[in-house]
């Protein structure tokens, strides 16, 4: 089943997650919001303007994305890859201005990539590459950053590292970040808002509010997984 009737809005300076079971349409929703794929129905408004009325370059200055698909060429250096984030602003051949350079430097610093910046992307670990991809999105300097499962394939430490970095970006730059995730417990701790795709009301609220409304209890079948509101964590159901 794919979730229907999704309605939510985000303001600047908010870190929000989309959670839900496999196949419910988290990625589809996120990719639709980023115009990576055409929308099935409904309306998406950014800064009071419908998504479809944005030209390619205009939209590139509004929304940046970090997707799950691997990049086509990993033979770029970290700095080259991050520099590509400046494309919406550079001239016909992509010359970097001083402003571009300083924006790139800023992203490198914020993502703590100073030591890695001259490495080739194929030399990086998954966690490092994910940080580079986020730095690239940051260099694009958009009000909105969309990330599709940014913590998949990472160990616990790196999952937390990435999510805390996202939090830091939101606090420091007042950007809006929306990401899909299976790390519901971490999202509860770190996000300002969470959108639960549960094929019902698809609530979008603050995590504490969602817990109070017992929204997480219905996310998974109760005979397999139960939600403990006191610790805001999931447990394997006892019995059978």
């Amino acid at each position, binding site marked *: 089943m794919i979730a229907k009737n999704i309605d939510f809005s985000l303001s600047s300076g908010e870190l929000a997650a989309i959670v839900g079971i496999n196949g419910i349409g988290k990625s589809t929703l996120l990719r639709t919001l980023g115009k990576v794929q055409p929308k099935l129905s409904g309306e998406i408004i950014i800064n009071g303007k419908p998504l479809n009325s944005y030209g390619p370059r205009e939209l590139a200055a509004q*929304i940046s994305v970090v*997707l799950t698909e691997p*990049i086509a060429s990993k033979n770029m250096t970290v700095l*080259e*890859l991050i520099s*590509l*984030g400046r*494309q919406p602003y550079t001239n016909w*051949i992509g010359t970097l201005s001083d402003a571009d*350079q300083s924006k790139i430097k800023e992203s490198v610093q914020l993502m703590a990539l100073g030591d890695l910046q001259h490495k080739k992307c194929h030399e990086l670990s998954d966690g490092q590459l994910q940080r580079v991809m986020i730095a690239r999105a940051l260099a694009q300097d958009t009000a909105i950053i969309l990330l599709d499962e940014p913590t998949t394939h990472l160990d616990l430490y790196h999952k937390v590292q990435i999510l805390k970095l996202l939090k830091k970006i939101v606090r420091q730059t007042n950007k809006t970040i929306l990401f899909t995730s299976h790390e519901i417990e971490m999202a509860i701790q770190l996000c300002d808002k969470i959108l639960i795709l549960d094929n019902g009301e698809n609530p979008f609220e603050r995590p504490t509010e969602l817990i109070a409304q017992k929204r997480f209890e219905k996310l998974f079948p109760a005979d397999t997984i139960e939600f403990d509101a006191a610790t805001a964590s999931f447990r394997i159901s006892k019995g059978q």
Partner: protein
Amino acid sequence: MDKPLKYRIPFLLLLLVLVVCFVFNISLGSVSIPFKDTLNAVFYGNVQNEPWAYIIWNYRIPKAFTALLVGSGLALSGLLMQTLFRNPLAGPFVLGISSGASLGAALLIMGSSLFSGVLAFGFVTNITLAIASSLGSFLVLLAVMTVASKVKDTMALLIIGLMFGSITAAVVSVLSYFTNAEKLQQYVYWSFGSLGNLSWSQLSLLTGIILIGTLLGIASIKTLNALLLGENYARSLGVDLKKSRYIIIIAMGLLAGGVTAFAGPIAFIGLAVPHLTRQIFNTTDHKILVPAVLVYGAIIMLLCDTVAQLPNSASVLPINAITSILGAPVVIWLLVRKQKMVF
């Protein structure tokens, strides 16, 4: 992208090698002309020996220019293809452009005996051959592009290009089967490739085609760099994918189609040169790769041609065989060390 200086010295060296190869290529041939006289003829235009001047100006210099254009054109079209299709094994033969040209040439040479009376082809000259093969490659490219507008996935487009290539190759086989020995021989000679048959006027036409293709390629540099991330990322960076894909495909068609029309199907340059260039410059930035493959392609083609003309002997080896003999080991080498392949 931040250090153009780093690439300036190897690039200047490459240009120097190009000039040396060009002069070297002109100085060697079946008639031995002293190197000093060659230099005199090229740079000052005065040679005592009339036949020598004639050979240099009407045969060797056009041939060297053709080699230069053919090498640059094929190499750039190969680079465009490899980046657009994100496939290190893409080359001008992949989109069916070269097979389209072969089909055009085959229809002109061998089709006339089959459909005599139905299709009244004129007699076969260099010019009609060039027209027929340009038409062939253009038609196949048009067919591929029509399909491309319906297909969103570039990988699917690659396979469609290969399928069109198979169809045209099959038609050529059927034509070859039914034609007579003389015409078959003529077609086989065309498929060997040749750099030496172009007059100055044909050469200027080829120059124009390569120039337009190259300019379109240069205009696509920024898009090509964005495509290194993949199509979805490129779109998110503000690239108008549909438009830029067409521009790149047209550039590839002009470059590969133009070359094949005038010089026959020349293998491997388009596939191998971009890889060799990446090995030297160790970058993926098309601001460096595009000019580098142009120069490198020209150098390799001039060298291949120098080998093919077997200096001081009357016979000439087929250029296509020489490029393949040099190119195939490169492809094998690339596949063997695939893990470390620079792409």
